[in-house]
């Protein structure tokens, strides 16, 4: 009950943020929301199904490039259409990739996802005419529910309508993932994570369920990617680079992968921490590396593990 109250209070605070916080802090929440959605997907694979992907940035980049391609090349500005197209495209790409990856577990699964992520990075980098190569592709300002909000400048757009749109998408994604995790499918994934042989013995189709989880995670990743691309205004190949996948895993560990809301807390904490440390020192990557080591060694259950008692995801 207390936990639900806290979550609702946090949601209310986020809803009021544009009225209370300075515009810059509000713009920082946007990537946190985008990563939050992508990480809900990543945590379905890791926290629930026990598969750690080091290539999740592939799908985040796919979402960003979908937004870029549709807005600049095809004149599609409707953000609903962009999100739907990104989700569809991610599912299409995830089918062959997932079919190959879920044949393996543990480090082999991780390495294979890493390989596909880097393959996509190379594709983005090399197929200049299609992807813009190293220079990437611009992402134009989309229409939200058919409205251009032309009267607002970019900051007004980002901290106003786009903020609430992103927050609503995050809420929808969170509710959808909650249903998925608590469904018989989600429980089966957990059974697979705990003991795949036993799960298979009681009739769970292990590989098929892992595959479904992979595709769902990809869709969440791409939806997060579309949200991430709009504030930047550019999709570039670094979004698919392995370090970006590493950052996603870091956020998950930071928030606490055992908790359902761990991804959201991790994304928020990472973004604000990065903002703070980057301004303080040029060696912020070193600080983050040290922090990752500390989290893994001393706080393996992440930030939520510090405040909330143990609870299965």
């Amino acid at each position: 009950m207390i936990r639900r109250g806290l979550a609702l209070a946090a949601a209310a605070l986020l809803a009021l943020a544009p009225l209370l916080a300075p515009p810059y802090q509000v713009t920082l929440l946007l990537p946190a929301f985008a990563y939050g959605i992508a990480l809900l997907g990543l945590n379905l694979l890791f926290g629930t199904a026990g598969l750690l992907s080091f290539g999740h940035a592939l799908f985040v980049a796919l979402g960003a490039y979908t937004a870029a391609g549709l807005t600049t090349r095809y004149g599609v500005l409707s953000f609903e259409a962009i999100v739907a197209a990104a989700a569809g495209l991610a599912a299409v790409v995830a089918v062959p990739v997932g079919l190959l990856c879920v044949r393996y577990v543990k480090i082999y699964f991780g390495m294979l996802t890493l390989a596909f992520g880097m393959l996509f990075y190379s594709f983005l980098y090399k197929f200049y005419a299609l992807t813009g190569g190293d220079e990437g592709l611009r992402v134009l300002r989309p229409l939200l529910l058919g409205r251009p909000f032309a009267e607002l400048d970019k900051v007004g757009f980002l901290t106003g309508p786009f903020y609430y749109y992103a927050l609503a998408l995050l809420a929808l994604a969170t509710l959808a993932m909650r249903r998925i995790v608590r469904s018989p499918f989600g429980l089966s994934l957990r059974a697979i994570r705990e003991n795949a042989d036993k799960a298979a013995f009681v009739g769970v189709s292990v590989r098929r369920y892992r595959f479904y989880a992979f595709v769902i995670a990809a869709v969440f990743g791409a939806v997060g990617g579309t949200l991430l691309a709009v504030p930047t205004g550019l999709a570039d190949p670094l979004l698919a680079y392995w370090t970006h996948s590493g950052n996603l895993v870091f956020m998950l560990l930071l928030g606490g992968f055992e908790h359902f809301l761990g991804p959201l807390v991790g994304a928020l904490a990472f973004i604000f921490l990065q903002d703070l440390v980057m301004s303080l020192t040029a060696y912020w990557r070193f600080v983050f590396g040290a922090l990752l080591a500390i989290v893994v060694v001393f706080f393996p259950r992440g930030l939520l593990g510090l405040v909330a008692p143990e609870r299965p995801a």
Partner: protein
Amino acid sequence: MRTTRRQFLALSGGALGTAALRLDAAPALAQNAPVKIGVLAAKAGVLAPVGESGLRGVQWATERVNAARGILGRRIELIVEEESSPKDTVERFRKLSLQDRVDAVSGAISTGVGLALGPVAEEMKTIWLSWDATTQKGVEETLPKPKYSFRSTDNECEAVMASLLTARHLKGKFRTVAGINPDYSYGRDNWAAFLAIMKKYGIELSVVSELWPKLGATDFTAHVAALGQARPDLIFSCFWAGDTPIFLKQAHAAGLTAKSKLVLTTGGGVHEALKKDFTPEGAILGYNCLYFDWARASALQKEFVRWHHEKFKEWPNYESDHGYFTIVAYKAAVERAARAAGGKWPAPDAIIQALEGIEAESLSGPRRFREDHIMEATFFQGMTTHKNAYDFVTIDPVETMTTKQIQKPSGVGLYDWINSWKV
């Protein structure tokens, strides 16, 4: 204690008076508050040395301006942030604009970052004075009429100058050509510009090898082997980072530098690493906009070079000059706009207007921003020589060309411009 009517009047009168005073004082305070300039400098990866170099130029300019009463009596305060990926750099730019409320942002090197920053500077209505980043996609300008973005010289200037020098000095001395360039837009565009100019000059050549190592690569064994097989008369490369000396060292070990002529458009960016042991004489080498050892350098350049060497034990490269110019150009623009505004601190729009066409003394000589916000400068290239007091190569003779000669004019495509040349 009860307040009498007389006391109340006196108190409120005093309060009003104080408020009036403070209102009056506010503009004076703003006049004396520092001018905040955000700086975006790369600090990690292959861009880090160049980012550091640009930052040094900005800091030196700032120290000098502040020592001479700042800009209209206001000191410059720098707020330094990191240039990294386009996404993170856009967020830093937003921080500088929204949170730190800077008057202008100086910096950025990468074209990918520049392409993202240009539109964001326009959206945020914040003046952005680029060091080396353009808003070019390939050789095409993507931001033809910006208001707030002031961009660097075009990406392909160095290739144009090196190609002109090749045509002038090496015409008839080579037939087979190989290109080894970093695998990204800068590398591809420079190579394409070189081939187009060779064609324009009627130089018949055959391309025997095109190699595209990754930017910042540290091993060229396979590339050197391929070049050894191809046996080109001339090797063209626009390497500009630590890859240049590594490639030269390996090429020298394989005997390539003795057999092939070299055209290195931008290798002067890491000039101290181009040791005489493995860098041949007679190669065309470009230094972009600042040649540290120029005999005809201004007193300003000499002072900077001396300071830089004393402080960092290194001879400076071009990025310091780009950084330096952004600060002195901004100062000159504010002063020009203030003259028109009767000596008051000008509004941002007036500063922007003054920046268009502004000319200021950079470390390497006069520079200006064109009316379309593209930088104009002087480039330095020449033939490498071992006859100097250093353990690395320098150039002699030093050739200079201005962007009037090697940069496409406003609104004209690169290849249309090259084709329009009368040669």
